């Protein structure tokens, strides 16, 4: 897979739903006949992938929210993995 550009806008894959489940204390990704319970960072990233914010925006937002820096490579790696699993798609 080619490197994801900072300007590309990840969005949830077609037919998928992401929601916070209090009973599981986690974000859960729902898809046809299956679900994935996301860990904290995956949930934080995925819930920002709205097709409006760019990858760059998402990284900046996360760094602000978690008072951290240098999150770029981790976020990009997760987004790449999620695209591979078809959890996310890129919007140009």
């Amino acid at each position: 897979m080619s490197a994801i550009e900072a300007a590309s806008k990840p969005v949830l894959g077609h037919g998928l739903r992401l929601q916070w489940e209090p009973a599981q204390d986690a974000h859960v990704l729902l898809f046809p006949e299956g679900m994935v319970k996301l860990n904290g960072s995956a949930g934080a990233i995925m819930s920002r992938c709205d097709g409006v914010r760019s990858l760059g925006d998402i990284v900046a937002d996360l760094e602000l929210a978690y008072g951290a820096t240098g999150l770029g490579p981790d976020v990009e790696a997760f987004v790449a993995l999620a695209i591979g699993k078809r959890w996310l798609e890129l919007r140009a």
Partner: protein
Amino acid sequence: MSDLPPVGHGLAAPSAAFAAAAPGRTPGPPLWLLLELTYRCPLHCVFCYNPTEFANTGAELSTDDWLRVLREARALGAVQLGLSGGEPLARDDLESIVAEARALGFYINLITSGIGLSEARIGALKRAGLDHIQLSFQDSSREMNDFLSSTRTFELKAQVAALIRQYDYPMVLNVVLHRHNIDHVGEILAMAERMGAQYVELANTQYYGWAWLNREQLLPSRAQLERAEEVTRAFRARVGNRMQVYFVVPDYFEVRPKACMSGLGSVFLAVAPDGTAMPCHAARMLPGLALPNVRTSPVREIWYESTAFNRFRGQGWMKEPCASCPERDTDFGGCRCQAYLLTGDADNADPVCDLSPHHHLVSEAVARAERAVAASAGQVQKLKFRDHRISIPVVTGDPVAGA
């Protein structure tokens, strides 16, 4: 993170990776809710997993009852919802049930043969918030021959498939495989590709309910299975990412059992048309399991307190070789229904396991299948089609003698 494999007609529902409650701890929520809305169905599948005595069960729940079950289960944390049957489209309140489920936050899967899915109904279901439709090709050789020869049923399915695409649903096809259609996997996949399917589940028959009665006629040979897997591999290599093909191997050919339902009472709750609550949709056959009913008990009480749902939680019920087996946290001793059907005791190891002293029951069934396939070259005979007019009690052991 954990995945659940697909579930559908003829498939044994969520097994595998979902973390089960550790022994002694409070069980987690019933994440998976399966509502079998009706046993009514226009088809007569030889491998239907509905109980063979289904004609003797009570009246169907009312709309209000189903809505209450949805609310109660969602409050406990249920989130994946399967609507199946029978044929769920036979309920004319399906749209109201879907609307309520969506408002509650369920992800809603409709598991249907497609019969009765008109444009008006799919439109109404879409507006009500249905998330996903699994179109199943179920009817044994009759429908499959039809399908493969592009005749009547195929036309109908193709129309339904077109509607599913038109209404922007991901297209998931489920085809139940057995001795009489497994050699056509290549044609089945080609047809699925022409229909524009994104996911195809090639689900080998699991031997419960009607399929159990027909096991001696349905179990494929190992050579058939290997050919089908080879064809599937070649197809996957050709289509790449465009289509996802799941191939569910019949567990009779394995040496370890499936982690059925991640252990009974850990994530899965099924409700039968008459309101009977079950820790697995085949559990009705288990003797002495006093299954609670949603008409008389709240879902919370059923899930956390009922004897039936606690019966197979943890590992206290296990017998040897499971009780001291290092793999018991992985497969939970396999399927209770299979243990009961084959050995007559639901507490035994699933005889698919080659550590089970009853494993020969499985290997002998496979050996008979080898001989039968070699002898008959695929003639269909003596199949018991699911029928509302006949009701057959569950017989355990080896049905071979009387089959």
